[in-house]
């Protein structure tokens, strides 16, 4: 029983404080929007020019002029603003967003990460990932702990083409929460029923274990969605 993609998203959402300005990447990160605490006001940013992305509209209520960077239809939240690409990337690269949540192919012990090009990929595309990586204070990675072939994704050095160096702050996986600190990787949380050794076995890089390292607090289900599976 590992966390599902929704389970990882749920856990990420717990670390976004009121008043944060957050960019959610494609994949697991966009799911974070479904698990935000409705009592906290959090602004979601979309690189194509939205601050204050709201819920997905009901089928039939889509507006063709309102889409997110993932090309899905969206609504706007209270207090939203719309702007052009120059302003959007000023927010992203200029240290204005508080958090960016991104997927990754690999994360290295020094905070390097790779998320834009699978080695050997025939047609590359980078989008705004590099700008977020260099410009946002809190880079959160949300990903499976190992590849679908069981290979560790948290490594000593990335082999895939880098997105940026030394910028990851926290890694959320289906089994653990790990911080990137000055001296390396610090295990903060592991899945109930597992232990730090289990996490280390699935991690190429050496993990330090935080003094207050603890079991992750994620419910089995949330509004009918399975967070474990």
């Amino acid at each position, binding site marked *: 029983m590992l966390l599902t993609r929704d389970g990882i998203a749920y856990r990420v959402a717990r670390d976004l404080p009121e008043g944060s300005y957050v960019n959610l990447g494609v994949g697991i990160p966009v799911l974070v929007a479904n698990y935000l605490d409705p009592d906290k006001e959090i602004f979601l940013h979309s690189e194509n*020019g939205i601050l204050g992305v709201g819920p997905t509209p009901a089928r039939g209520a889509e507006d*063709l002029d*309102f*889409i997110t960077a993932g090309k899905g239809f969206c609504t706007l939240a209270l207090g939203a603003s719309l702007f*052009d*690409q*120059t302003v959007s990337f000023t927010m992203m*690269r200029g240290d204005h967003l508080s958090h960016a949540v991104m997927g990754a192919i690999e994360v290295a012990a020094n905070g390097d990460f790779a998320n834009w090009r699978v080695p050997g990929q025939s047609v590359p595309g980078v989008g705004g990932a590099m700008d977020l990586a260099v410009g946002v204070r809190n880079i959160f990675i949300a990903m499976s702990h190992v590849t679908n072939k069981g290979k560790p994704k948290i490594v000593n050095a990335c082999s895939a083409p880098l997105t*940026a*160096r030394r910028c990851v702050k926290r890694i959320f996986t289906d089994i653990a929460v790990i911080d990137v600190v000055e001296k390396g990787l610090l295990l903060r949380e592991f899945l109930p029923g597992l232990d730090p050794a289990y996490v280390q076995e699935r991690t190429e890089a050496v993990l330090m274990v935080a003094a207050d390292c603890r079991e992750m607090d994620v419910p089995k289900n949330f509004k009918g969605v399975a967070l474990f599976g």
Partner: protein
Amino acid sequence: MIDKTLATCMEAVSPVHDGATVMLGGFGNAGMPGQLIEALRAHGKRDLTIISNGAGTGEFALGALFGDGLARKLIASFPAPSAKQFRAAYLAGAIELELVPQGTLVERIRCGGAGLGGFFTPAGAGTELAAGKEIRIIDGREYVFETPLKADFVFIKALQGDRFGNLNYRGTMRNFNMVMATAGKYVAAEVDEIVPAGSFSPEAVHTPGIFVTHLVSVSRHPKLLELPSEENP
């Protein structure tokens, strides 16, 4: 009397010549100048260098332009996996791709439009997209030198325009359209509606008319008006 309106999209694309550099606005389908791009396809000039965030999808407008074999180079940040016609041309060696981080693409266009000579950005430093580029350490941090982009022809999409070329946008239509409008000598905007001079509040103009040389009012391309279906989520 100033009147920048043209009757048809064909008229708007008619000066485009073989070998031209062309910027195309839009991000996904929002703010894509679909009818102007269809006219550009019909115009049929070749060896174009296209500057655009992505490479479109499907069988019309930006996506189809690459299937026509009219472009020899694309400068972009994200040719998506769904950009099938571009991918086929690229894998066949029929088109060159200059891939840049999206913020760098935006800033290079702005740099061209604002009369600057180049800038240093931290985006891409230490990655393969910085290969061959000048690197400079500024205040202990690594930056990549990037150069301005301009175009012979810029085609953009807006909601409304007036005869002076003033434009406004709705929702997420602004994206690349506003900055691209500054980076060419020939800038044609496709609008849903041309409104009488004086309709815009001066505070509500998004693109001042000085940046726009031509505009044409036309219904949006039918494919851009399609809501998602089961086949097209």
